[in-house]
């Protein structure tokens, strides 16, 4: 008899638990969607600017890129060698 009670309680906890998890995450989905829309409405510009900035450096000629790489690696090398001492 007591076993049956335990079983029932387990079943109740299972239903309640899954229910709460789903309800909570559903609320979270709705609020995240709303929040994203709000943020998108009030602050659409920075995102666009960001992507614009990111795409522009890629059009730099590769020769200049190589030069920059060389300078950077030289600087890193010098920094590391001084640190080691």
């Amino acid at each position, binding site marked *: 008899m007591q*076993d*049956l009670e*335990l*079983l029932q*309680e*387990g*079943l109740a*906890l*299972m239903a*309640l*638990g*899954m229910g*709460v*998890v*789903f309800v*909570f*995450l*559903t*609320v*979270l*989905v709705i*609020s*995240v*969607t709303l*929040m*994203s829309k709000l*943020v*998108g409405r009030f*602050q659409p510009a*920075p*995102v666009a600017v*960001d*992507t614009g900035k990111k795409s522009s450096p890629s059009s730099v000629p590769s020769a200049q890129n190589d030069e920059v790489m060389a300078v950077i690696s030289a600087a890193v090398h010098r920094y590391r060698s001084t640190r080691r001492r």
Partner: protein
Amino acid sequence: MDKLVTLWEGSGLYNLELGQAAMIMVGLLLLYLAIYKKFEPLLLVPIGFGGILANIPEAGLAISALDQAIEVAKPAVLQQIAAALGATLDPLANAEAWRESLKVIAHDGVAPDQVRAARDIAVGVGYSDGMLYNFYKVAIGSGIAPLIIFMGVGAMTDFGPLLANPRTLFLGAAAQFGIFATLFGAVALTSMGVMDFSLNQAAAIGIIGGADGPTSIYVSSVLAPELLGAIAVAAYAYMALVPLIQPPIMRLLTTDKERQIKMTQLRPVSKLEKIVFPLMLLILVALFLPDAAPLLGMFCFGNLMRECGVVERLSDTAQNALINIVTIILGLSVGSKLMAESFLAFETLGILGLGIVAFGIGTAAGVLMAKLMNLVSKMPINPLIGAAGVSAVPMAARVANKVGLESNPHNFLLMHAMGPNVAGVIGSAVAAGVMIKYLG
């Protein structure tokens, strides 16, 4: 000659019990798995080593001053302790029998103030709490260590993929079915008379299916501290086994065509959204589920430190130095629960068995939920990412990615799988909150 005998009787070899020897072997096995098989080495090395320390005979590293006194003190002290506990000792029996009966009395149905008085006697005659016992009391008994680890996990988590595709939260929710199905399984086993678990213990076992180490430790420290050792070992061992457990289930439940589904590119997520998200989650927890507040509160705090960008130093500490320090102490504390009396029981086998079932059911539920969502939504969802809904960050997401690549070498699911993956962390913390609320 007498001195030699005393020395011999004080040696570990003389006092070694079979159970302790077996547990030292278990500790060595954990170390082997960690070092040679790379099973969650960051945790299993401290846990395995702590397990060995806890089972050193006579040293009593993992027991309280009172237990230690009961185990080794002179008969006169035993009588004092018995008086403090309000028990009478059979004057005809020998000291060994007294120790046995006192051990039972001290852990069962004695008023807390009597235990405290007995403890004072033990401390008074020069016994002190074992080192690992202190670690356990500070790190896990108070609940601090798992929460700090959760803060570090928050500081390491990028919610970008989740914010870009919030519906993946449903996958994280579905995968929590593993937790509750296992809870029910443990209860069913009890009612069939195979095992003997209380509802609290069943809940603590179920949480292994959340595939989240700190959450498992936190929940079992609240609901069933006596099973903590076995639960933590099972949780971490199975997390390491995710790449072996999940793929067969994922392949079984999906067709090759479904595995090849390509998902649309995730949109970029602005910084403001990432900052607002942890705060919003915190407010929702405060409103609906205060019992999940310790876990999710620390998680949100860690994530806010990461995303707000003005406390780099704190965020860096939370996800590196601090989490490492706490992991050491947490591991040793869990090891202290690997004492022969509590670990070498039939129940431990049950926990290990149910734990793997929990993982399997969680994976299956996540995959099936993804298939269901595919039926109703326009945006295609690859069912494989549903399996990442069991937390195990980032291992489960990597597994989803790998299985996806097997079907289509150009289909990278990793970023898509990170969404349900972190949703699983939130989901299992919510599930933990519900269970603590219901049973705590």
